[in-house]
Structures are given as C-alpha cells and as structure tokens.
C-alpha cells in the first residue's frame, strides 16, 4: 500500500509542482486525489467542474469575490511582528492574522467564494460540514450575506466542545443538524453532508470546508484560500525586504496550510513546515496525524493518506482540537510530503495548549487550539535553528475553544 516513489518519479513530480501542473485533468496531484463518489454525484461534480472553469479565473467573478473579501471579510488581514515570542524563541516570528478575518478564522475566505459560486450555478440551498464550527459559522454567515438557505452538519461530540459556535450558526440563520453516526466528529459530518447531497444533487450546493474530498474540491479550496499566502508574501517582502526562511501552518484536512503554502511553493529557498495533531501518542486512535502515521487509501472522495487499520477501516482519531480531528489529509499535502517539498510533523495536545498560553501572555492574542499546533511547531524549529525568519499562519482565534480551555489550561486557575 505504501507509495514508494523511485528517484525519477519523484523528479518528475517535483518538476510538475514547480510548473503548477496540479491538479491534472483527472483531478490528480501526482498519485493522489481523484474522484471517488457514488454515480449519483457524478453529474453534480461535472457541473461543478464546468462552473469552476468558467468562474474561478473570470475577472468579473474575481472582482465580486475580492470586493467581499475586502469590504465584508476585512481583508487584507495584518501581518504582526511577534516581538516577545521572537525574543523568547531566538527567531524573527511573523504572524499572519487570519484570526482577524470576519467570523474569526480563515474559513470565511473559502465560504464566501463557494457560496458566490453556488449562486452563479443556480443552487437553491447550501449545505456544509463543520468540525470546530468555524467552517459552519463562515458558511452560515456567507449564506446570510448572499441570501441562501444553509444547513450545517456537525458531529454531536463537536457540538459539545465547540458550543459557542453552534449558537452563532443558529443566529446567522443556519439549520444545524447534529450527527450521531460514526465517530460523531468531522468525518461523520462529511459523510452526512455527502448523504444529503446525494439526495438532491441538482438543487443543493455542497460547500466543503477543507482541502479534501473529490475533485475539484481540493482545487477550489486551494484557489480560494491562497489569498492568505499571497498577501503574506507581499507583506513580509514589504516589511523586511526578504522572503521568510520557514513558513508554518497547522494541518487537519489542510485548508489554511495549502492557502499559505501554495504561493511559496516555487520559492526554492523557502522551507515549509506543516503541523498535524499529535494528540496523546503515536498509536492508532491516539492522534490525527495522517501524514506522519497514515497509509494511502480512499476516503470521502479522494485518494490520499489515511489513518486506517490493515483491513482498510478508517480509525477514530483523537485531538484536543476539533478542527484537526480528521483521519485523512488533502491530496495536495500528500503530494508535497511525498516529494519532501513540505515537511510535516506532529504536535501533541499538551504542547499545543502550552503554545496557546504562551502566545496569549506574550502577544495578547488568543489563538485557536488548531493554530496553536503551528505555534508549537514553529517554536520547536526556532529553538533548534536560531536566528531564522519564520512566518506562521495563525489560522483562527481561540474564543470558540473556551469550553475546552476551561477543562484544561484553566482547570487549576479557576
């Protein structure tokens, strides 16, 4: 099952990545990606592909999209120089502040873009899945803004640990459907959203929130999220006159990471580091680090790296962060890992929470637990490689994590 690439295969993949040749016409990122879905969804995905080809590079559509990003989302988000963390970690730490985007995370970039696309395609309603609730809130907000009915599927376990976001979605007019099947987290929510979509493939638009799923979703999400990396690249050049030595992001399905990484892929001197959820250990079921511990397989529409047993059954995962708690990863990350263009490592629950506390105290910023994995990974790198310029995607704010933080960091304080 392991995809071991020969030297020449790897060279060919590297050349294609340099030329931005992925996804190819079959929706592949090298060996990864594709379109593994029930026949009922094939015409819907074909229509979506036509819509993507027609609109995602269309100047009028992009003008409308960027107008919403600027005037409603509040972009460009700032690039903050983290003075105290830089001093403590012996590095130059720059934070790309997606926590300051409307609704509190990068997810809104994708949601507003996809709901705009849904309208162009004549959809009657939008459905979405959510883990941490950020994509659900972003989709609910985008639907309210553009006048679309919205239904969000959310695992019952996640509804409990991200309770503030459930109320926000309802206020924004969305119907929130608790998912009690499967593992009751993000993966079960995706399964339920797919089942809804299969029932009404003509009238419903599925607004997928991560860089996963059948082609063309990983491509759509990358295109809409790349605004993060494009802005950050311009900003850091303006502020320092140089590119960063290292770009860092957390990776669950991998939407903020692909948005941050993609604009830097061709910059050969820029190294990149993706941080997965290391949970409480390296064993099956103890983490959600699909690149670190997974094997190739097909889940929810695409061929990528998965946490599965020897019979191909998908494993339940563990992470303190709902947004990273997913047993697969976007196919483009699987490719970037296989050619060593991006290095992926795991950060455990405790280190992520410690980084969250450190960022609060040092910079006056409460990051999401997801984003705190990126901070912890950057710290580890900085301490081992002094004096580097490090750009971190701070993908979201941590207000939504208060119920979890009450049970963990604040347990002894209150």
């Amino acid at each position, binding site marked *: 099952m392991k995809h071991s690439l020969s030297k020449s295969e790897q060279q060919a993949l590297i050349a294609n990545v340099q030329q931005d040749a992925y996804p190819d016409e079959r929706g592949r990122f090298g060996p990864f990606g594709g379109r593994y879905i*029930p026949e009922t969804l094939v015409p819907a995905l074909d229509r979506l592909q036509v819509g993507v080809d027609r609109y995602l590079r269309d100047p009028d559509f992009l003008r409308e999209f960027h107008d919403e990003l600027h005037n409603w989302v509040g972009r460009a988000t700032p690039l903050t120089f983290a003075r105290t963390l830089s001093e403590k970690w012996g590095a130059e730490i720059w934070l790309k502040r997606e926590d300051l985007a409307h609704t509190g995370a990068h997810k809104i970039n994708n949601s507003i873009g996809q709901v705009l696309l849904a309208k162009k395609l004549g959809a009657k309603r939008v459905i979405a899945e959510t883990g941490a609730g950020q994509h659900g809130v972003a989709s609910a907000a985008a639907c309210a803004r553009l006048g679309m009915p919205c239904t969000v599927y959310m695992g019952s376990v996640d509804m409990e640990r991200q309770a503030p976001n459930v109320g926000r979605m309802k206020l924004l007019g969305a119907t929130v459907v608790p998912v009690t099947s499967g593992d009751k987290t993000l*993966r079960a929510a995706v399964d339920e959203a797919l089942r809804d979509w299969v029932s009404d493939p003509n009238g419903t638009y599925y607004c997928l929130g991560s860089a996963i799923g059948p082609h063309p979703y990983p491509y759509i999400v990358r295109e809409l999220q790349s605004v993060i990396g494009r802005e950050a690249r311009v900003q850091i050049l303006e502020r320092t006159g140089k590119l960063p030595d290292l770009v860092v992001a957390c990776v669950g399905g991998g939407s903020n990471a692909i948005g941050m990484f993609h604009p830097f892929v061709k910059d050969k001197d820029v190294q990149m580091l993706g941080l997965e959820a290391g949970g409480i250990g390296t064993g099956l079921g103890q983490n959600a680090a699909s690149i670190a511990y997974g094997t190739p397989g*097909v889940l929810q529409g695409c061929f990528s790296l998965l946490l599965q047993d020897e019979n191909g059954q998908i494993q339940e995962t563990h992470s303190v962060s709902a947004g990273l708690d997913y047993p697969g990863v976007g196919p483009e990350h699987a490719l970037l890992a296989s050619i060593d263009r991006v290095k992926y490592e795991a950060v455990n629950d405790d280190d992520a929470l410690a980084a969250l506390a450190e960022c609060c105290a040092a910079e006056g910023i409460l990051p999401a637990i997801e984003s705190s994995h990126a901070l912890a990974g950057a710290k580890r790198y900085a301490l081992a490689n002094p004096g580097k310029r490090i750009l971190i995607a701070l993908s979201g704010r941590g207000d939504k994590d208060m119920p979890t933080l009450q049970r963990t960091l604040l347990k002894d304080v209150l």
Partner: protein
Amino acid sequence: MPARDSISTAIRDRRETGQPALIAYITAGFPKKEGFIQQLNAVGAVADVVEVGVPFTDPMADGTTIQRSSRAALEQGVSLRWILQELTRAEVKPRAPLLLMSYLNPLLAYGIDKLPEDAARAGIAGFIVPDLPFEESHELRNALDARGLALVQFVTPVTPVERMQMLTEGSGGFIYAVTMTGTTGKNVAVPEEVLEYFARVKKISPVPVCAGFGIRSREQVQRLAPFIDGAIVGSALVEVLERGDDPAQFLRSLRE
C-alpha cells in the same frame, strides 16, 4: 462459462419465467458472525443472486439501516479477509451467483493484485463498488476481468443519456439502476417519471437492468416489473434479519 456470465444468466433465466429476478443484499456477519454461511444459504435458496456486503466504517451511499448493520459487523471483527475465508471453507453454498458489495478502501487494503484470485476461489462472480465511478475503475476492472469476474456499474435518474450508454455498455453482470437520488433504505414511491427512466435504461442496456434502493414491497416490484429484469432488496432484508424473522419467507413475499 466465466463466473461473470453466471450472473446475467441467472437473472435472464428467472425473467423468462415472467418474474423479475430477486437480488438479495446481506451485510456479512450481521446480526451474528457465527450464522453467516447458514444465513447466506437461507437467502440464496430464494434469491436469484446474492450480494454479500463488506462492512465499512464510512458507507456514504447507505442509509441508517446499512450504516447500523455495517457497524455491528465491524464490532464483531468482520473483514474482507474473514468473509473470503469463510466462503472458501464453506461446504455448502447457494447455487445463486454471489457478488461482493464493498466500498473501495477495504478492497485497496486487501490488495488489488490478490483480490480477484482469492475472490474467485471463494466462489464470487463479481463486485459492486458504490464509490468507484467508471472513470476511476480501470485498474480494478482489468484485474477482475482477467479472472472472469464482473464489475457492476450504476446508473441513476440524473445520469445523462450519453453517460448511461457508456455505463450500461461498461457494466458486467447487470446494470444497477438506482430508483432515486438518495441513500439506500428509504421507501420509494414509483412515480410515472421513474418508470420512464427505467424504460430508457432498459432500451439502451445490453445487460440485464436491476432496480435498487428503497425496494420494500411486492407492489413496488410489480409496478417496476415491465421495465426491469431484476429487483435488488437490501435494507428491507437487513431489517428482517435484524428482527430475527425468516429471510426466505420475506423474499418469497416479494415474488408471490
């Protein structure tokens, strides 16, 4: 006769008696792992073709009944390896051809290189893979083809005509014509436009046309009968087994 032809032959033989064939789905090892072969024989004594379901953790095309049976089977340790071993070892097996119904990932994990040979040895005549569209199916199709095994394709009410042509021509054993957009197990009314759709499939398909998803009653089967060669019964049969009722009796009730 290659194994794949035994499927279309069994369906056509039944059709010639004036009745549509019955294709029965069970989740392997549900409700109890121990009774698997015995249950298969009970179902196979009435059905013309039997689909043996390989449980999967993420059955995205299935409704609540098959989600539940899959989960229960997995909790008892049912795997593709176990299913093939049991079938290979079984002394008595139904005369009805057997199909394996599985999502793609358990097949990939087993290994596409070994699967056709082991399946043929276990007496499997073909495969149904609900998350493998035609465009992604070449590797598996070629591997199965080399051993004379069928790969069944689906068509749905939203499939465009040109695509329907390609899928029916590319399908082995029969064409699985989904009655509705949706997951398995919901009770379907059979409105006029659904009959028109089946008539359309029937007209262009070189292989037998079998209707599946939401088939629960003799009335539905009779209404569809002029347009189909077979009816596929899944969730309703799984619910009969769940209640501990007699599957053979239920299957006969669909035919009488």
